[in-house]
């Protein structure tokens, strides 16, 4: 059984209470009724998967919840996790006309979740075209949102799709990466299970890393979809980085989400100021760390995290140290970590250390979160496919690479965006594959 869920950890649930809790039925209807039902709605245009937002909201207000959920799933098979994980402030809700109506935007994400929760509660399965009714076989490498969306879309139209995932559990960063107070690992697995029941075949615990493995797939399948995401976290490349207490941000997040790490205490320093750094810092707080610093080499205005993520972190009690850079990690006599840092100023886009501004931060953990490296191992094997800065080059309309049998989408092709972007990429690629297949058999 490839998509079995892991048991819910009650302590984890308690610590990571949801930041976007579900709406009650009446609150959902009241909120749904607030929506103006815009024509050519800007929220729909802003959603990378172009969910018919007024359409699904209208259906909530009339009590047609099944129709609402199907409307969502039609555009976005991961409608449930997107409802929870999407940075709606810069997507659909950011585009809502209500901002200019001098009122709060419609809570699209929470309404979407409401519809999806009620659909999942019915246990209904999604209808697909008869398997094999489209004579096309696709292997999706990587089991994250991009591949899930691609495979599901193919399967819905009767094509055969398999997912090959290196990890034991499918879902990619939905399972191992997105903050638990947004999206629970168990929710991600439930979604993967829905897709498995649609007829997508999962091969987990199986990495495709060699040219031979690729060639084998090429002989077995008509098309290959690459949804391998980004590579490992980048290293800071400073002395002392490899000692105990220095945690890789992604591994740290994955281990608390899967219950391997249950508690943290003392002082934690997270290095970086992107969304992953914020997630790691918030998680450290919620796991019990008394003091959490977020250390960033630039200033508040340059940080790459979304504004609402920054606000959220301040709310969680994370403290920010701006314009400071670590240059060495040592161990104190009492076994704690000593992080040597220095103040830096930006001169002509170059960071210059300020003399005499050295400071030692005594802490228990250091979590570097300065970005994922673009190079996944597999990508290095793709000698016949054009890469730019480690990102797979695709036709944005179709996801096709310069090798016409290879498609790609999600983080490995867009350089690292959000779950919903990966879903949109996967869906577009699936549709393009179906179109090519149709033309070939017509």
């Amino acid at each position: 059984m490839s998509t079995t869920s892991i048991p819910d950890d009650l302590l984890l649930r308690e610590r990571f209470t949801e930041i976007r809790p579900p709406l009650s039925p009446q609150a959902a209807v009241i909120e749904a009724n607030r929506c103006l039902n815009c024509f050519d709605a800007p929220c729909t245009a802003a959603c990378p998967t172009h969910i018919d937002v007024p359409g699904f909201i209208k259906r909530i207000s009339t009590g047609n919840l099944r129709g609402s959920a199907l409307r969502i799933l039609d555009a976005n098979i991961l409608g449930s996790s997107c409802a929870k994980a999407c940075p709606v402030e810069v997507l659909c809700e950011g585009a809502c006309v209500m901002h200019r109506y001098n009122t709060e935007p419609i809570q699209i994400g929470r309404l979407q979740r409401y519809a999806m929760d009620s659909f999942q509660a019915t246990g209904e399965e999604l209808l697909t075209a008869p398997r094999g009714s489209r004579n096309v076989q696709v292997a999706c490498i990587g089991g994250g949102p991009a591949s899930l969306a691609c495979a599901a879309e193919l399967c819905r139209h009767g094509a055969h799709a398999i997912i090959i995932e290196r990890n034991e559990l499918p879902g990619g960063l939905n399972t191992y990466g997105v903050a638990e107070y947004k999206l629970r690992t168990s929710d991600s697995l439930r979604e993967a299970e829905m897709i498995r029941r649609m007829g997508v075949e999962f091969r987990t615990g199986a990495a495709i890393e060699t040219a031979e493995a690729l060639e084998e797939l090429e002989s077995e399948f008509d098309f290959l979809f690459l949804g391998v995401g980004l590579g490992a976290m980048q290293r800071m490349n400073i002395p002392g980085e490899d000692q105990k207490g220095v945690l890789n941000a992604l591994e740290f997040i994955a281990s608390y989400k899967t219950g391997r790490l249950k508690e943290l205490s003392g002082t934690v320093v997270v290095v970086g100021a992107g969304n992953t750094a914020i997630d790691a810092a918030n998680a450290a707080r919620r796991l019990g760390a008394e003091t959490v610093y977020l250390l960033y080499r630039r200033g508040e205005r340059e940080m790459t995290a979304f504004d609402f993520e920054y606000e959220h972190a301040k709310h969680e009690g994370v403290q920010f140290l701006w314009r400071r850079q670590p240059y060495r990690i040592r161990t104190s006599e009492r076994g704690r970590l000593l992080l040597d840092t220095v103040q830096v100023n930006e001169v002509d886009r170059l960071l210059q250390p300020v003399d005499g501004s050295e400071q030692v931060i005594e802490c228990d953990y250091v979590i570097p979160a300065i970005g994922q490296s673009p190079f996944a191992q597999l990508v290095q094997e793709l000698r016949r496919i054009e890469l730019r800065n480690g990102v797979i080059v695709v036709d944005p309309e179709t996801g096709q690479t310069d090798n016409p049998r290879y498609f790609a989408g999600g983080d490995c092709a867009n350089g690292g965006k959000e779950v919903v972007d990966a879903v949109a990429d996967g869906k577009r690629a699936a549709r393009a594959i179906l179109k090519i297949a149709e033309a070939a058999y017509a």
Partner: protein
Amino acid sequence: MPDIRVHQFAGKIDGPNPFWLASGPVSNKGEQIMRAFDAGWGGAVWKTIGDPATNTSPRYSSVDWNGHRMMGLSSIERISDRPIEENLRELAEVKRYYPYHPIIASLMAESVRESWHEIAQRAEDAGADGLELNFSGSQAGSLSQDPERTEMITAWVKEKARIPVLVKLSPNATNIRVVAAAARRGGADGLSAINTVNSIPRIDLDTLVPEPNVGGAGTYGGFAGPAVKPIALNIVQQIMSDPASALPLSGIGGISTWRDAVEFMLLGCTTVQVCTAAMHYGYRVVEDMAEGLENWMRTKGFATLEDLRGLSLQRVTGWEGLNRDYKVVAHINEQKCIGCGLCQISCWDGANQCIHSDRVSGPVNGRIELHDGPPTVEFRSRTSIATTPVTRQERAAAASNHGPYPTPLAKIPRVDETECTGCNLCALVCPVDECITMVPVGQNARPEHRGQSSLASEIAAEPQRS
């Protein structure tokens, strides 16, 4: 301070203000009516008195709209379920404490002269300031539509009564003027309109039973509340514009605010009655009604209720009387538009296909073939590639890509004035106040603007249209 007192309505009735409780559950008992007077009501029509009725439970049903409760209320309640003596004893008691607040006894009896004589006499003896003959509730059946019997019973009551007699009219009559004229011929001193509208308000989709569901079945109800106001205003106008039916009139039907009340007065009502709004929110609704009326009169320069009564009657004409050369076209205020697109879709699907999203691509005037219809517009958006602006630069670019107005230029629709019929649907659907205005064009163009305090004099000065 404008004077909102009522003088000599229907010949004899005075009161502190024109807001009366309509006959119904809000005016069922003496204790209630005293509290209502304390809250500010200017009079009350007692819950219809007659041989005590029995009632069902439940007895009401609501028509909700877009999450708002009781747009309309349907009721299968009958007349008072309490003995006549008890009602009249309490009426006498309230009159003792509130001598200056008019109390109208609403009456219902068998169609027998003696029965009407008797109940009219007893109500008058109890101290009622007027009588309201209820021929019109759902319980009154065909009587509400029968001019002969209306005239006859009114005449019977007039044989006895020395206080004013009002006849309450039903909106269910085929021709309200005929029934009103009959009441007038019978000697009525005034009219009340309207009673409730026949209704089946809703059917429960789980039980398949109409509501209210009384143990597995429903029945016809009487509909009231905001939803019936337009029906009531039409009937009020019908009655007041015909010399054969016009009488002092107490307006009823969907009045929830002072604005509604003013509209009834502008069509000729002297007093207004309220049932559903008081059932929904309690007697306190009268506070804003009285204040709002006074403040409106002050800004418009009206000193008394008589100054404004009936002023809109002269503005109603048959369709043939309208000026067909008068032409307006829709105009969108770009500063106010929020880009919801509702004007565009309503114009395309419900009007004249002349609102387009072509500000960026360049305006094109002319017939439908020249433009992208709604399916094309939506298809374009749904096949566009949108991505999450993850970097600061992407976010800044998205925010600055706006054009001169708060809404991105591409999202502000444009009216093709050469094709606009001026139907004004778009102005009605636009959610933003005064964003779409209908602007007069051509030789009939004249400034629509009205000065704040000159309304009264302007209306008075305006020649009546023939």
